Every structure is written in structure tokens, then in C-alpha cells.
């Protein structure tokens, strides 16, 4: 009986996690501007990855495998916001301005410089 429950719970976690990963990747394609794509990439990095890892943890039960999954989750928890911040900071200092609603910004991607470090 408990196997059925753990399978159902882990299946629910895995299904929602993979749904969020696909949604994040779809957002990465469809978003108009670089800074909006940061939001889409953030979806997969945070909740998508956590739900999939949670689904695997439920499947693994109390064992060394769960400790490793917790470590992967902890490292992703610390590194993905830092790398997203580093990318956004590098883009802003290189002069890639976000697109303002009334078009007052530096326009869309065409106007962006090709990453010329000053």
C-alpha cells in the first residue's frame, strides 16, 4: 500500500516539476527581451528543479541517495541565483538596457552591443 502512495506522490512531484521545466524553457524562447528571459530561466532553476529533486527524494526514501539529492538541491539553491545575478550584472554593465514599455529604452535586442567589455 505504501509503495502505491510513494509512487503516486513522487509521480505528482515529477510531473509538475517537468511541466515547470518545459514552461520555463518555453518562456526562454518566447520572451521578447533579455531581462524578461531571466524570469523564464529562473522558473526552471528554482521550482522546476526542486520539484523534480523532491520527486526523486520521495522515490528514494531515507537513504544516502536522498542525502545526495539534498546536496544537489542545496548547491542549486546557492549557485543558480548567483549565476543569474552575474549574467544580469554583466549584461547591464555592458550596456544592454532593458526595453522600457514606451520604447524609450535602447530598443530590443538589435540595439544591444555584442558584449564588448569596457
Amino acid at each position: 500500500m505504501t509503495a502505491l502512495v510513494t509512487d503516486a506522490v513522487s509521480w505528482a512531484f515529477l510531473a509538475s516539476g517537468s511541466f515547470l521545466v518545459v514552461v520555463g524553457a518555453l518562456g526562454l524562447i518566447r520572451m521578447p527581451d533579455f531581462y524578461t528571459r531571466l524570469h523564464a530561466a529562473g522558473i526552471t532553476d528554482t521550482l522546476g528543479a526542486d520539484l523534480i529533486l523532491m520527486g526523486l527524494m520521495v522515490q528514494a526514501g531515507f537513504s544516502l541517495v536522498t542525502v545526495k539529492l539534498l546536496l544537489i538541491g542545496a548547491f542549486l539553491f546557492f549557485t543558480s541565483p548567483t549565476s543569474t545575478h552575474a549574467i544580469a550584472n554583466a549584461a547591464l554593465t555592458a550596456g544592454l538596457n532593458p526595453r522600457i514599455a514606451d520604447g524609450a529604452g535602447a530598443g530590443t535586442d538589435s540595439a544591444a552591443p555584442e558584449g564588448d567589455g569596457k
Partner: protein
Amino acid sequence: MFAVTMAALLAAMILALGRLYLGPTLYDRVLSANSFGTKTVLLIGVMGFLTGRPDFLDISLLYALLNFIGTIAVLKFFRYRTLGDGVNPDGDGP
């Protein structure tokens, strides 16, 4: 169950590669490469569970860190045009 998750992860990776190809600016490409790396971490983890080999998780643990270091190295290179080689001790760019 794991196969469904792997199929979704592979589809998401293809979409990330699409953005990597389309990305007009350098930073779109770095962002999609970083996102691709995170999905690889998950793919290796789910692959380990699919084939019943728990040692795959060590590989995905390592790749999670390597992906971060790679992203920061690419950003540093394009910021300073050099990764701080030994000859120029401060290596602070031109």
C-alpha cells in the same frame, strides 16, 4: 514515470538550444547555456534513477558546480578579455 520526466527534460533542453541559437546578444546565449546545464544536472539525476544506478547522482552533483564555474568564467572572459593569465599578475584586462 522517469521516462516522462526525461522526455520533458529533453524537450526543454532542445528549447534552450533554440534560444542559444537565436539569442541575439551574448548574454542570451550565456543564459541559455546556464539553463541547459541545470537541465543536464536534472537529466543525469533522473537517468540514474531510471537505470537504477545511484552513483549517477555524484556526477550530477559535480556537474551542478561545474556549470556554475563555467558560466562565471565565460562572463569574466567577455568582461575583461582575459581570464587573468599568469604573465600579467593583476590580469585586469587591457
